[in-house]
């Protein structure tokens, strides 16, 4: 499926109230198309800024489906997350508006939502349907917002490398992304470090590690052990404004905003503690688990 002429010029906003009206069972099953004209009426286009141009986003999504077609669709996440983030340049205030993500899922790329999330048809469930939350749902479940937020919370300043690592493990979305421990940059990067080292490679260990950190977070304030740098709003602003001239590469990793990163020293301050937490955690299921 290609973008074609049906792609709007600008991205827009779509309220949950209007969105849910169109999420009928046939639509969730993929047997019926979204009523585009009706949807267009309900949508409010964003300002005419190059960062809100819909075309490049649609092309990026097409590229993802092309690259990972025939493979496990979950693998598209690690590729798409940093690039979507680098293309839709915005601050957290803007990203917190879920109407933006509703628009992407219902108006811009419902085909991607179905492609990425459709369960396999089984005997018991011959016509499977996509969970509604992948279209309209919390930030850690909705198909596009989860990618953007994973990129936002796992990147280390301009470096999207950690995002690729995190998005290679579905537990990053299912567990880690929704816990407040991830608001702390040094905690996020230390978890990435443990994932890179190989100790925490699969879903279950990552789930166990996240839970252990989250529990220990009831008594420990990691933010004091390894203080985050203050957020550099101006640097972030500049990066957002730079959207007009930036070009997101498909093969090379893009660059994120240089709005504050943690150093190896910060990670080293937490690493021994996290190793210890992991060592004492209850990791259920000894055998390597599937990632989803």
């Amino acid at each position, binding site marked *: 499926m290609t973008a074609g002429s049906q792609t709007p010029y600008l991205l827009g906003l779509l309220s949950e109230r209007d969105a849910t009206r169109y999420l009928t069972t046939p639509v969730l099953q993929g047997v019926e198309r979204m009523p585009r004209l009706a949807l267009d009426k309900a949508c409010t286009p964003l300002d005419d800024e190059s960062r809100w141009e819909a075309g490049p986003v649609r092309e990026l999504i097409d590229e993802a489906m092309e690259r990972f077609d025939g493979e496990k669709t979950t693998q598209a996440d690690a590729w798409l997350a940093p690039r979507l983030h680098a293309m839709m340049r915005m*601050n*957290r205030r803007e*990203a917190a508006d879920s109407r933006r993500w509703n628009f992407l899922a219902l108006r811009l790329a419902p085909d991607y939502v179905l492609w990425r999330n459709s369960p396999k048809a089984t005997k018991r469930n011959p016509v499977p349907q996509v969970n509604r939350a992948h279209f309209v749902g919390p930030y850690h479940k909705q198909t596009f917002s989860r990618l953007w937020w994973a990129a936002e919370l796992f990147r280390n300043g301009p470096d999207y490398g950690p995002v690729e690592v995190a998005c290679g493990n579905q537990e990053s979305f299912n567990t880690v992304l929704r816990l407040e421990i991830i*608001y702390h940059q040094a905690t996020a990067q230390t978890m990435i470090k443990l994932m890179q080292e190989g100790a925490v490679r699969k879903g279950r260990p990552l789930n166990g590690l996240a839970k252990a950190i989250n529990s220990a977070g009831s008594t*420990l*304030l990691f*933010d*004091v*052990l390894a203080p985050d740098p203050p*957020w550099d709003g101006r640097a972030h602003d500049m990066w957002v404004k730079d959207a007009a001239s930036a070009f997101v590469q498909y093969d090379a990793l893009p660059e994120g905003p240089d709005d504050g990163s943690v150093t190896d020293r910060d990670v080293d301050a937490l690493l021994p503690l996290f190793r210890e937490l992991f060592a004492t955690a209850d990791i259920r299921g000894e055998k390597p688990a599937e990632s989803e």
Partner: protein
Amino acid sequence: MSRNRLFPYPVLGDVCTMQVSEVRLDGVPLTVDMASDRNKMVALHHTERQGWEVARLAVRVHAPLSDLEAGPWQDVTCVAILSERRTNARTVTRLRREPDGSWAGAVLLERSRHLKRADLSAHLVATVEGVQGRMIGATQASWTVDLQASSADQPNTVEIVVVDFADVAYPHLNGYKTDPWMVDATGDEPTVYLNSRFDGLTKLLDSGERAARENLSAQIAADAWTALFNAAVYATDMSEEGRPEWPEGWRGSVMQKLLPDIFPELSPEDGLLELVSRRVDGEGGGELQSALMHAVTRQAAVPRRLGGFIRATNRKEGS
């Protein structure tokens, strides 16, 4: 609430108090009524200063000093934590120790990292029995920094919008233009719409006779709570352990408010489990609806307000 908690080390408890003594938007101070110690609330919406970038909140934290000094805590520090779930943002500010033993500092709220309502609390952190970074105490009640409120007196209520239901700017209401009110329980903020084209409705609510006004308000509120509750039920998910998770935002608040009256003999957690399992089992029927009606009636103060209305009517007829 925390009598069932066990700490693996000595703590001071949630005994600190915090004050917000000054708020500046881009360096310009806000009037004092934008911060209320009583409501523990700071309002940041100022009609003449819409485009601000940074709010600076001067905070001061007091802890019981004698208890603190007597305890086994070393390297005690105090931090203010500003966080908002909607924007996944947290700012931790280390406060400085003042000569009088309190802690003070300035918390910066970057507008581009916050949307609606941020939570501001303070924590005492210390080295305890050789373990660094332990939280040993916190504020009893945290502050709410509301970016959309224009007064610190505004409680966190469901938004009420008076609008003509035939107004094309509100297409979703156009289908209900003969209705007096409508509850929108979708999205991040629930809204009660009052139809201004419904003759006399807003006049009665704003300036009508007190008993009539309150009785009508109770009816609308009862409808609103019912709609909010039903929406919240559908937003409640099971965790992987098979326990229901409290929905976030207003949906969680609605659950917390109504469940104790719906399942009086169950703890809120058990009540939530009961609710979700009935939904899964398809038992959302009669009994639950009766219990919900009871809870909503209480929440909307229907007995008192209807009773007052009846009495007032009787008086009028008798005279």
